[in-house]
């Protein structure tokens, strides 16, 4: 019984995290019907921002008995959380602006891409140097930089050609295009991650004090886990408020019902979609940061892959586009994983996650809480 309750608690903790990431998937799916594959990688970037902030950017003190330092560290950790949310929100908007919007509106490659590239380059360069030079493997560095620079110039010169291709051939892009673009963005973030953050796993040391609480009959709750659970719930409540009671939230819901009608009602759909990506990115950033800082798992450029997929599965189980569904799906995934993980079938954990998914899809093709939209004939 103790083990049962303990596993249930683990499941809910894990599930709350999945739910947090799943919300980003589900919101984007709601407004755009797009599976934003890159979302898991935004989560990864959130963890890296946590790592850099904790290790290099902010004056964290070594944990000691000094209560002053402890309080300082906790305040700083909150700052890191907000910073991570901010930057990941921005990243979400950037992804939407540079990859999905041009595809959606049939704009192709625009000038903005080149300027965006020109700004992103030095930033990537900074991180790249930061890592490679310290372990003496930065030999190809300048070669690569020149390669990219030349590529940029040549690309810029080739703009008329690109224009020409774009103007001649842009059709209404299919879902498949959107999906492949999303996969491309995901690959870019992962492989850009290798380049920018380096291939070695990073770890964030203990930044805030941790404590185990024993509750009824030996069930243990860890303070960090509790913090993750509480912050996740808090963020979900804030999200709920935004979606239900603000103008933007109403606009989001309008768009998810019918984007064309929303446009005709004078809603600036591009702007609302940007906000959606910002919120999704911020939630993923918060998730990544919390996992990195509070559970000290290894952070690699592939950090977001597995949680991303699982959160995505959670979103689908709940019904993509449905916000309570994402939370429900996340919790189901988390609990199922905890119980399977603790059983003798633990090796089949991921298979079982997907089996649950397939079964639920077959029984309820639009997910547990999703609306089953029949096509009008």
């Amino acid at each position, binding site marked *: 019984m103790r083990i049962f309750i303990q596993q249930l608690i683990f499941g809910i903790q894990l599930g709350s995290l999945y739910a947090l990431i799943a919300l980003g998937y589900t919101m984007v799916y709601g407004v755009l019907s797009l*599976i934003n594959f890159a979302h898991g990688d935004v989560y990864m970037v959130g963890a890296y921002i946590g790592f850099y902030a904790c290790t290099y950017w902010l004056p964290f003190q070594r944990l000691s008995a000094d209560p002053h330092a402890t309080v300082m560290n906790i305040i700083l950790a909150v700052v890191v959380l907000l910073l991570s949310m901010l930057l990941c929100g921005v990243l979400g908007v950037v992804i939407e602006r540079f990859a999905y919007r041009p595809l959606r509106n049939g704009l192709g490659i625009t000038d903005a891409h080149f300027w965006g590239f020109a700004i992103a380059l030095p930033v990537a360069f900074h991180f790249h140097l930061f890592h490679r030079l310290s372990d003496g493997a930065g030999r190809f560095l300048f070669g690569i930089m020149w390669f990219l620079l030349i590529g940029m110039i040549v690309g810029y010169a080739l703009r008329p050609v690109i224009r020409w291709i774009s103007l001649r051939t842009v059709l209404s892009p299919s879902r498949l295009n959107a999906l492949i673009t999303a996969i491309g963005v995901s690959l870019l973030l992962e492989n850009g991650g290798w380049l920018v953050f380096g*291939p070695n796993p990073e770890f964030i040391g203990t930044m805030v004090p941790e404590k185990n609480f024993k509750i009824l009959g030996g069930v243990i709750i860890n303070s960090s886990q509790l913090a993750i659970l509480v912050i996740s719930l808090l963020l979900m409540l804030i999200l709920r408020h935004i979606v239900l009671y603000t103008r933007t939230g109403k606009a989001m819901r309008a768009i998810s019902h019918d984007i064309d009608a929303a446009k005709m009602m004078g809603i600036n759909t591009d702007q609302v979609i940007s906000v959606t990506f910002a919120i999704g990115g911020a939630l993923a950033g918060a998730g990544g940061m919390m996992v990195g800082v509070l559970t000290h798992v290894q952070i690699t450029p592939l950090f977001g892959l597995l949680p991303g997929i699982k959160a995505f599965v959670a979103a689908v189980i709940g019904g993509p586009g449905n916000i309570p569904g994402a939370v429900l799906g996340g919790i189901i995934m988390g609990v199922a994983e905890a119980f399977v993980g603790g059983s003798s079938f633990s090796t089949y954990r991921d298979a079982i996650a997907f089996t649950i998914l397939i079964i639920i899809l077959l029984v309820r093709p639009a997910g547990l809480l999703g609306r089953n939209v029949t096509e009008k004939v």
Partner: protein
Amino acid sequence: MRILMLRVIAILVTFIGLYMLSQFVTYQMDPYYFQVLIECGVYIILAVSLNLINGITGQFSIGHAGFFAVGAYVGAAWTMIWQPMVVERYSFLQMGTLHGDILNLLIALILGMTSAGMAGFVVGLPSLRLRGDYLAIATLGFAEVIYVLLLNINSVGGARGLNGIPTLISSGNLALFWVFLFVIISIVLSRNIMQSVRGLTWLSVREDEIAADAMGVDTTKVKVTAFVIGSALAGAAGVLYAHFLTGISPDIFSMNTSILITTMVVLGGSGSVTGSVIAAIVLIVLPEVLRFLKNDRMVIYSVLLIVMMLTRPQGIFGTKEIGFPKWRRKQPKTEGRSA
């Protein structure tokens, strides 16, 4: 009769040409290039077969690596596990001689294709209920389930996979022959289906399922058939991969591979067989050419992918084909003459 004659000659020329090609190449060619060439062939089969499901029938399947894996493992299981069990009783199955090797390869192919086809049938069934993204997720899920199962089945090596699968060496010179035979089979099969009136009904399922249904197209049958044929071809690709690159492990059949194959189809132009072939070659050769860039090549690759999707969402070839006769254009002309 003349058509029959022509066809027999065509098939003979194909066989002899492929045979000579593979003989010549195996003696002359660096094994490294040879390996890349085999890989190219295998991925062409995969891309063309996925194109049948995804491009032609419009069923959003992105778990093709699952079928690839089923074919590869079942084929390898024959040569490494089952064949040694039965060879004592049926000595004609002995490997090492030309006919023995060919026989074993054929058995492996049949087993691999059948089991992959059956998997395709099972996966095709949800396609009756699920549309678009949901089907995509279900197929991806299927591929992941296969992947996890392979990791956990010890008799096929678990995470290590199966290494040192017999190349069936006396037919080893024929590796290219077999691979490109299947390349041609899959291309011709796609083309023939697409150009018949029955094949048009497959396209109609892609274009508008409800209208197709109303025109009497048995959409259920079309979808399941597309899945079965597509996955059986992927199974064949798996068998060839396992036997001519001599090693398989679950990692080869991970989600990345599924995504790679999907990318080939979309990049080449969803629905275009020519496009799938070209894209498969490009996506296999390009990373090899860019090998000197080490990890950065993947960055370039992903940027290219995004740029491609933004500027040419319909892929390199759109739905056009190169080298397919314009049979449809001719038809009105004959009409005119007879009228």
